[in-house]
């Protein structure tokens, strides 16, 4: 369990943006409503995770996979999410594949130079790329986590 409760919150600025994009133009969203939606989103993650994990455990797997999450959505009666999720996953997987191919190519090019020298740097690169793959798109604006959007 995380020791600091705010670690389980999602960044306010991003939540606010998502809310605004979902609502018609010019709707005033109170600060209290924003905070409540953010907390609801965290609870949603927990609920979805718990649900997905049940499916994984049933299948005697220790790793949560995509199928578990989709099954959880159905269980939670959010079938409306299934199609957009599947579509997004397809794009995501293609993108991941593309990046992997690029980094593998880079690695092959490097290997042509020196073999022993690169054993260590390859490990570091893999870790870096893993990080990048996971966080590159969503964390374009890391500073926003501390921003409090002030409404007129």
């Amino acid at each position, binding site marked *: 369990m995380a020791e600091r409760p705010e670690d389980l919150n999602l960044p306010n600025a991003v939540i606010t943006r998502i809310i605004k994009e979902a609502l018609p133009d010019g709707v*005033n969203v109170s600060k209290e409503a924003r905070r409540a939606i953010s907390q609801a989103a965290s609870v949603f993650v927990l609920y979805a995770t718990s649900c997905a994990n049940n499916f994984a455990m049933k299948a005697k797997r220790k790793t*949560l996979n995509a199928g578990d*999450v989709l099954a959880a959505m159905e269980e939670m009666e959010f079938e409306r999410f299934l199609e957009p999720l599947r579509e997004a996953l397809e794009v995501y997987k293609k993108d991941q594949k593309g990046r992997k191919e690029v980094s593998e190519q880079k690695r092959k090019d490097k290997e042509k130079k020196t073999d022993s020298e690169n054993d260590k740097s390859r490990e570091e690169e893999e870790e870096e790329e893993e990080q990048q793959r996971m966080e590159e*798109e969503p*964390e374009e604006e890391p500073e926003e986590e501390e921003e409090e959007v002030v409404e007129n």
Partner: protein
Amino acid sequence: MAQTNPGKDSQASEAKKLISLPTSRVRLIMKSSPDVSSINQDALFLTTKATELFVQHLALTSFNNGSGREANSLDYSDLAKTAEETDTFHFLTDILPKKILARDYLESLEQLQDEDADF
């Protein structure tokens, strides 16, 4: 309220951003769930995306069903109402309780005490 930034938008549409929420934060929350050992990358992506869809769905449903609609606003009470009235949002009733005036709460407490006194 400025909502569009042309420069940013053209960049974003080029990158075709799939998700906005940071997966690292979502992973943190997921890991806090008991019995979860590891989470595969696709599962993390899907959960993040699903959370965004959820935020949109909750906001829009609450706005459409709530009394704030006339005032073109979304307030806490709209959310609490939706949590109570919409099945799929029932799991939120604990964290989105309806608010009542302290006066009314005390009144109903007194009523309960009166009922107990009859026994």
